[in-house]
């Protein structure tokens, strides 16, 4: 079977190369049948990759340890769901997933747009073919998941920290996001290559960008929750280079989603949009390079492997390609209109863009700093949390404020008087909230208080927008149905507000305590009293579990246990934390038993109270809801598009 997988990958690579070469020739020489042939090659490339993926999935389910990949990442006692998740648990499998999603997305995007935008898709095919050819080459020549060996009796098993339900969903979500950014990039490049830089590429990729952005955002939240419950250090985001690798393209894509609206409304920022699309794509590939090259230390990194240099070369080449293309087509990308006023919706979007890109580049610098210092000084220096926290506040808080102001400003121009009138109610709500929070003791953290009050401002402005719109249309459902993108966006804004409140609450107002306890001893924190009841050791088929059991009283009554698991396959420990969630207060009591001594029964533990942390996870659901509303197909929009492009098809 491994031979079939290998053959399918070789065929997929050949087809991608054909799509690249024949697609370029057909688009350059305007040849219809050759273009159709290149398009078919892209479709077949997906089919062939799918066969390779089925071969690997079958080998995983059948515990076929003659596949080196299966033996390295699974064993016979691993539950089926985790056995299947081992598909993306290792380097080679995750690359295969990347290629599968890329060719699948590419085939679908081209198939959906081939009739309405023939000139554009003729160039999109070779661009997607080129990207797929790179991944195909890496899978065939550098990191094949189909290497075989003499089958051992059992496999090494999956890393314990990956044996978590969130890890079944988190990586595929991220890949759907990362790879999804290839589609707007390919269409933008196609538009520039064809010389037809009208809005069709934006129309064609609007939903693809939104979907990729939503997957990437939700995938990060899933990853944050995994880190929170599984890694066991008490936090959810550590500004780890690999976490940042997912954040950066998401920030660039967020900027693009906003700035593209200015192009649609005013025909401005064409160059900027091309730069943002290219940046989002390059950062997604760069993130993959970071994860796989071993140049940065991260708990999320794959083992150091030779594919890093290939990825670096690809990032460099594709960046040069994008820059040359944009420079070449600069005359076509000139705007015909100008910003009419600094007090307008488009100006607010512009400020938002500058802040998002500034935050993105700041994070990028933080990620690159150890590599740069290694190259320049010969020693790697890491940038710590204070750097990121500072810039998150410096750029994030104004962004939050703009999220409230932006929707209230009209397009083109707003007079100061009209703006003051519009902002009056949200400002009253904000000041009232700020004063109430200060009296409630939130003033102990200034950034926290600012984040809370700005959040109140954003929520008030969203409510005001909905009330005003509903007054015009008569129903909130009609209002949302008429402009799903805008109101879906407002729901996403509400999700970001929940996220901001959750982050501010859990980081600025959280409490923690490190204690040494023996059975019978108690400690108190944030209204909870924890008494160590006992320590115990329990052997299970998969691991030996060591736990410290605490009785909790005060705000909540019950018991919590925390400790570690010593797994047999692979022989690795895994920290297990105890979490009690109060949904009413959105608060968590979080216990980390660092050291449990079974002989002396002494337990060293860290206890944390994290107020409002659960708003972060609720934000994820609201985020998905908003994205779904914005993504929901609009039949009227489709009809208009067809009507607009109809003569182009004739």
């Amino acid at each position: 079977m491994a031979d079939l997988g290998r053959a399918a990958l070789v065929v997929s690579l050949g087809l991608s190369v054909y799509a690249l070469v024949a697609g370029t020739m057909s688009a350059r020489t305007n040849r219809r049948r050759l273009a159709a042939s290149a398009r078919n090659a892209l479709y077949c490339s997906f089919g062939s990759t799918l066969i390779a993926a089925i071969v690997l999935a079958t080998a995983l389910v059948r515990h076929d340890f003659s596949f080196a990949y299966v033996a390295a990442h699974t064993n016979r006692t691993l539950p089926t769901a985790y056995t299947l998740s081992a598909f993306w648990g290792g380097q080679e499998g995750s690359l295969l997933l990347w290629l599968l999603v890329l060719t699948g997305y590419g085939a679908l995007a081209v198939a959906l747009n081939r009739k309405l935008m023939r000139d554009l898709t003729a160039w999109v095919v070779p661009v997607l073919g080129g990207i797929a050819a790179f991944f195909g080459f890496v899978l065939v020549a550098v990191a094949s998941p189909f290497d075989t060996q003499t089958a051992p009796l059992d496999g090494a098993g999956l890393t314990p920290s990956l044996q978590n339900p969130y890890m079944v969903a988190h990586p595929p979500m991220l890949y759907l996001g990362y790879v999804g950014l290839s589609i707007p990039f390919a269409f933008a490049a196609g538009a520039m290559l064809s010389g037809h830089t009208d809005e069709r590429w934006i129309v064609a990729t609007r939903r693809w960008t939104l979907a990729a952005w939503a997957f990437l955002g939700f995938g990060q939240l899933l990853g944050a929750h995994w880190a929170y419950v599984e890694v066991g250090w008490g936090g959810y985001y550590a500004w780890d280079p690999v976490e940042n690798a997912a954040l950066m393209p998401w920030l660039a894509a967020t900027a693009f989603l906003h700035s593209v609206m200015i192009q649609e409304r005013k025909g401005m920022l064409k160059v900027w949009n091309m730069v943002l699309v290219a940046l989002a794509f390059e950062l997604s590939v760069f993130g993959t390079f970071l994860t796989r090259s071993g140049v940065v230390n991260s708990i999320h990194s794959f083992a150091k492997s030779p594919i890093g240099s290939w990825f670096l070369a690809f990032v460099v080449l594709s960046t040069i390609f994008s820059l040359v293309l944009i420079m070449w087509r600069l005359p076509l990308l000139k705007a015909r209109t100008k910003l009419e006023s600094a007090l307008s919706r488009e100006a607010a979007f512009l400020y938002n863009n500058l802040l998002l890109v500034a935050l993105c580049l700041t994070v990028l610098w933080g990620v690159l700093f150890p590599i740069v210092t290694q190259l320049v000084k010969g020693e790697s220096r890491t940038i710590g949390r204070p750097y990121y926290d500072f810039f998150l506040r410096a750029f994030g808080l104004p962004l939050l404020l703009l999220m409230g102001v932006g929707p209230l400003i009209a397009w083109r121009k707003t007079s100061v008087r009209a703006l003051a009138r519009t902002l009056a109610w949200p400002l009253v709500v904000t000041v009232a909230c700020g004063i109430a929070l200060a009296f409630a003791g939130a003033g102990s953290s200034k950034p926290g208080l600012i984040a809370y009050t700005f959040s109140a401002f954003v929520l008030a402005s969203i409510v005001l927008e909905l009330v005003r719109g509903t007054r015009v249309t008569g129903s909130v459902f009609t209002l949302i149905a008429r402009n799903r993108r805008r109101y879906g966006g407002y729901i996403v804004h509400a999700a970001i507000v929940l996220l901001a409140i959750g982050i501010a609450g859990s980081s600025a107002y959280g409490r923690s305590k490190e204690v040494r306890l023996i059975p019978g001893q108690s400690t108190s924190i944030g209204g909870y009293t924890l008494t160590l009841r006992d320590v115990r050791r329990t052997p299970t088929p998969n691991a030996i579990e060591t736990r410290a059991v605490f009785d909790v009283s005060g705000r909540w009554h019950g018991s919590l246990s925390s400790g570690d698991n010593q797994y047999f396959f692979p022989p690795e420990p895994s920290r297990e934390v105890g979490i009690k969630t109060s949904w009413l207060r959105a608060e968590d009591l979080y216990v980390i038993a660092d050291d449990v001594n079974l002989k002396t029964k002494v337990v060293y533990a860290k206890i944390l109270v994290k107020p409002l942390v659960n708003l972060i996870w609720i934000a994820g659901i609201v985020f998905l809801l908003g994205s779904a509303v914005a993504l929901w197909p609009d039949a009227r929009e489709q009809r208009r598009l067809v009507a607009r492009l109809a003569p182009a098809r004739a």
Partner: protein
Amino acid sequence: MTIILGILLAALVVLVVALPFLREPSVEDDRLDAPGEDEVRRLGLVEERDRALAALKELEFDHRAGKIGDEDYRELVGPLRQAVAGALRAIERDRRYVQDMTAFETPDLPAEPVPPPDEGSPPVPQPVTEPYPPPDEGTLPAPASVPEPYPPPDEATLPQE
């Protein structure tokens, strides 16, 4: 078995990739259906029209929702209406130009045979679709009743000649 499957896979993809050439081994016109100069120009004009209509609709909505004051509305609505009218005129001009050029380039063809008067009813002209509604928006809301700024105060007091 695996080798046979691999060969079958390769043969199948070669077949699918070659399909456009197998279906049409020789064709008179193998040109890609790309928009010509006229079509690109038309697309640009249609984009302009849709953009202007969307902006006008947005302005009407914002005004009705109370986001824009009467003063700002009066200042902005005129240029936007002009932009819409200009875009519609430009599309019409372009359509006529293309029609004229096509008629100019068309070789002498025999005139359409006129149907005898007693053969059925006369042909009904095709309905022309309205350019409304603009993209991203539903039906155009009724314009708000705003007092026209005209005549400007200083003009009203001008002495009659």
